[in-house]
C-alpha cells in the first residue's frame, strides 16, 4: 500500500524531526512525519493535572525499553571505588563488576524526549566545535559556531527561550526572546556560596518562556517538566515546531507509525520507508528522507536496512555507523538543607555555573564541565517522594517529613564524554515484539571521563559544603549508572566519508536523498551543555539545505 506523494518523509518527531519538518513545510514542501508514539494531550494525559498527582503513574514509558537489549557495560575499575554511586552517609559498598544496565531513556510520542526534558536550551560555545584542535578531544566538527548561529537564533525565537545575555563563557549575542527566569531560593543560596568560592552561578537559558509565546502561557513554575507540562508552557516540540508546521497545511503527521526498514534503489538512493501502522506494513515514498529517531534508533534502522545492497548497513562505508556513542559524564549530588527552600517550585534547572566550561588541556576536566543546580530533579519533589524516602514510620517519621519537605536539591555536574569507537550501538540476534533486531549498547568511560567525574564530585561537594548543606543524601555518578538521556554521536558528521557517516549538512554519505537530523550527528557534546538546541538548529540547517536542493 502506498502513500500520497510527499516531498519528504521525516521519521521521528522529537527535537530534530520536529524542526526538520518545520523547516521543510515552511519552505513549501509536503512532509509526512512518522511518529512511533501517540500524541499526548497536556490537559488530560499528564499526572500533574490531578491534585493528587503523585498517585498517578507517568504517561511516558521510560522503563527498560524492549527494543534495546539491556547490556552490562565494561568492567569498572575497582581502584576508583570513590566514584561509585551511593546513598546517604554510608560509604560505597563495593565496586560492582560492571556498569549498570543500559536503559535508553527517551519518550515515544509527538515531541519525543522534549516531552520530558527540562527545557535547557544551550548554544554550544564556539570552541566546542573545535574540540580536537582546542583540547584534543575526539575530532573537530566540519562546521563552526558562525555557520550555526542564524539557526540557533531562529530556534530560540520559536521556543521563546528565556535567558540573560552577557555570559562571558559563550560567544557574544543579542537579547533572548524572553527575559531570564527569576532564581529559586535554592539557587540564590547556592549562588551566594559559589561567590565565596569565586565561581558564578548564572541563570540558565531555558525553553521555558518567561512571557507568553505564540498564545501559550509563560512557565508556571510547577516543576513538572519531566512528567509533561500541563500548561502548554514548556516549549516542547509538539507545542512549537509541530504546531507551526501544522499551520502551513503541508504536514501529515502519522502517530503510532513505526519505521522498520529503508528500501534503496540501484544507485543507492533511498526509494521508500517501510513502516508499521494500524497492524499493517506500509510503504511511504518521497523525494527525500530524514531520519530523526535518536542516537540509538537511527543507527539501528540504518544497520538493519537493506542487507542486499548495503550488507554493513546504509551509510556505513566508513565502518563508523553506530560508533562514537556519547552519553553524559555526570555527577549528581543530592543534598538537604536545614531551612525550607520550597524546592518543588520553579524551573527544575534554573541555574548553572559555566566557570569550568572552557576546556583546560592541562586540567582535570579536559572536556570542559558545567555545574548546575536543580530543585526538583533530585528524585525529591512532592510530599510523597519525601515521605517514601524518609526511613521508618510513626510520629518521628511524620515530624521528619514535615521538617524536611522542600529542602532537598541536587547539585550536579556534566562533562562531555570522550567520543571513542568502542562505545557503540550494534545489532543483536534477539528480536523485539515487531520482529526487528534489538540493539546492544556498549558504553564505558575512558581515563579522561573518569578524571572528569572525579573533578566534578570534588567541585559539587565543595559547593554543597560552602552552601551549608546539612546532609548528603545520595551521590550518583555515571561511573556505574549509565547516563542515557543525552546519547549522541552514532552517525558522526564530517567531511571525510571514510571517517564519518553524514556530511556537513546531515546528508548520509553514499545515499544522496537520505539525511539525518538528530543527536546522532553530533561530533562532540558541547563541553557539558545540553544538546537539544543544537539538534534543533542543525535540523533547521539541514532542512534549508534540502529545500535548496529540492528546488534546483
Amino acid at each position, binding site marked *: 500500500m502506498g502513500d500520497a506523494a510527499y516531498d519528504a518523509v521525516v521519521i521521528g518527531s522529537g527535537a530534530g524531526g520536529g524542526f526538520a519538518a518545520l523547516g521543510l513545510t515552511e519552505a513549501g514542501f509536503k512532509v509526512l512525519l512518522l511518529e512511533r508514539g501517540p500524541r499526548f494531550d497536556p490537559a488530560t494525559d499528564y499526572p500533574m493535572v490531578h491534585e493528587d498527582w503523585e*498517585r498517578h503513574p507517568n504517561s511516558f514509558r521510560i522503563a527498560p525499553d524492549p527494543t534495546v537489549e539491556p547490556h552490562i557495560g565494561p568492567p569498572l575499575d575497582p581502584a576508583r571505588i570513590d566514584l561509585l554511586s551511593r546513598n546517604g552517609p554510608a560509604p560505597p559498598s563495593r565496586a560492582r563488576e560492571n556498569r549498570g544496565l543500559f536503559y535508553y531513556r527517551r519518550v515515544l510520542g509527538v515531541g519525543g524526549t522534549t516531552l520530558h526534558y527540562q527545557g535547557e536550551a544551550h548554544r554550544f560555545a564556539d570552541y566546542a566545535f573545535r574540540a580536537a584542535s582546542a583540547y584534543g578531544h575526539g575530532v573537530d566538527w566540519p562546521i563552526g559556531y558562525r555557520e550555526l548561529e542564524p539557526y540557533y537564533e531562529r530556534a530560540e525565537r520559536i521556543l521563546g527561550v528565556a535567558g540573560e545575555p552577557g555570559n562571558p563563557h559563550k560567544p557574544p549575542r543579542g537579547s533572548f526572546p524572553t527575559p531570564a527566569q527569576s532564581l529559586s531560593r535554592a539557587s540564590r543560596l547556592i549562588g551566594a556560596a559559589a561567590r565565596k568560592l569565586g565561581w558564578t552561578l548564572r541563570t540558565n537559558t531555558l525553553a521555558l518562556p518567561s512571557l507568553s509565546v505564540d498564545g501559550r502561557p509563560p512557565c508556571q513554575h510547577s516543576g513538572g517538566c519531566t512528567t509533561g507540562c500541563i500548561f502548554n508552557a514548556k516549549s516542547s516540540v509538539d507545542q512549537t515546531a509541530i504546531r507551526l508546521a501544522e499551520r502551513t497545511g503541508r504536514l501529515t503527521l502519522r502517530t503510532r507509525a513505526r519505521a522498520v526498514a529503508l528500501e534503496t534503489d540501484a544507485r543507492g538512493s533511498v526509494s521508500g520507508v517501510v513502516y508499521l501502522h494500524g497492524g499493517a506494513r506500509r510503504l511511504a515514498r518521497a523525494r527525500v528522507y530524514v531520519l530523526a529517531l535518536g542516537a540509538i534508533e537511527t543507527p539501528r534502522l540504518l544497520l538493519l536496512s537493506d542487507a542486499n545492497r548495503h550488507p554493513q548497513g546504509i551509510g556505513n562505508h566508513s565502518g563508523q555507523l553506530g560508533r562514537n556513542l556519547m552519553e553524559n559524564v555526570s555527577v549528581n549530588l543530592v543534598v538537604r538543607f536545614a531551612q525550607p527552600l520550597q524546592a518543588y*517550585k520553579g524551573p527544575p534547572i534554573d541555574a548553572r555555573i559555566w566557570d569550568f566550561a572552557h576546556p583546560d588541556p592541562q586540567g582535570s576536566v579536559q572536556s570542559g564541565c558545567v555545574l548546575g543546580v536543580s530543585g526538583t530533579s533530585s528524585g525529591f519533589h512532592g510530599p510523597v517522594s519525601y515521605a517514601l524516602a524518609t*526511613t521508618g514510620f510513626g510520629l518521628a517519621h511524620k515530624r521528619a*517529613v514535615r521538617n524536611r519537605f522542600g529542602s532537598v536539591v541536587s547539585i550536579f555536574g556534566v562533562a562531555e564524554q570522550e567520543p571513542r569507537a568502542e562505545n557503540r550501538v550494534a545489532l543483536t540476534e534477539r528480536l523485539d515484539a515487531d520482529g526487528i533486531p534489538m540493539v546492544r549498547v556498549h558504553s564505558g568511560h575512558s581515563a579522561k571521563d573518569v578524571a572528569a567525574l572525579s573533578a566534578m564530585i570534588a567541585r559539587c561537594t565543595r559547593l554543597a559544603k560552602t552552601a551549608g548543606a546539612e546532609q548528603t543524601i545520595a551521590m550518583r555518578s555515571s561511573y556505574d549508572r549509565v547516563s542515557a538521556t543525552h546519547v549522541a554521536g552514532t552517525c558522526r558528521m564530517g567531511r571525510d566519508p571514510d571517517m564519518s557517516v553524514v556530511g556537513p549538512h546531515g546528508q548520509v554519505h553514499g545515499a544522496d536523498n537520505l539525511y539525518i537530523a538528530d543527536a546522532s550527528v553530533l561530533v562532540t557534546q558541547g563541553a557539558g551543555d545540553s544538546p537539544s538546541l543544537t539538534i534543533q538548529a542543525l535540523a533547521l540547517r539541514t532542512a534549508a539545505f534540502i529545500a535548496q536542493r529540492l528546488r534546483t
Partner: protein
Amino acid sequence: MRLKAIYGEADSSTLQHIGVWLPARGETIYCMNRRHFLKRWLRAVATVGTTAVTGVAPLLRTANAGNDALDLATLTAVADTIVPGDEAPGAVDAGVVSMLVSSIERDPRARKHYALGLVELNRYTLETVKKKFPDLDPETRARVLSDLTTGAWWRRAAAYRMIALARNHVLVLFYSSPAAYQMLDYTAPRFGYLKDRETTSNSGIRDG
C-alpha cells in the same frame, strides 16, 4: 542487613533513597526500584481517586469468604501506626483506610499479602503480648511493627511483607491527600506557582 537500611530507627534522622521489598515468584525477596514497583500499584490507586472513596463494603463482603479475608480493624490500626494523628490529622482521619481497601481489592497479589500478613501480625501479638494488634496502645503497636521488620524478620515473612507494603501504600495515600497538603502548606502544582515566586532581582548573583 538490607532491612535496616529501609526500616532504620525511626528517630535516626537519615533520609535516603530506599528500595522497596516485594516478594517475587518462588518466595524470594528482592529489592526493586521504588519507581518501578509503585507504577503497577499506582495504576490500581489512580482509579480510586481522592474523592471516589468506595467505602468498606467489598471488604466486609469478603470478610467471611475464607482464609484470605482482610481484617479491617487490624488494617486500620496498622495505618494509624504508620501515620498517627498529632496536631495534624493522621492516616485514619485523612480517609486513607477506605482508599487503601479499594486499591487492595483491585490488586490480587497485594490482597493476598495483606490478608496473610494481617493474620500473622495478630498471631504474633497474641503470642507475645496476649492481645490482638488493634487492642494494643500506640507505643506497643509501633514497637511491634519495628520488631517484625528488623532482626529475624524472615521468621514472620508474611507479616514483614504486609508491613512493607502497607508502609509505602499508606504513605502514598496520606501524603497525596488534602490533609497532608494542608499540614505541609503545600499547593498542588496544577495551579502553578508563578504568583508565589519571589521576584527579587537576580543581579546580585549574576554579578557576584
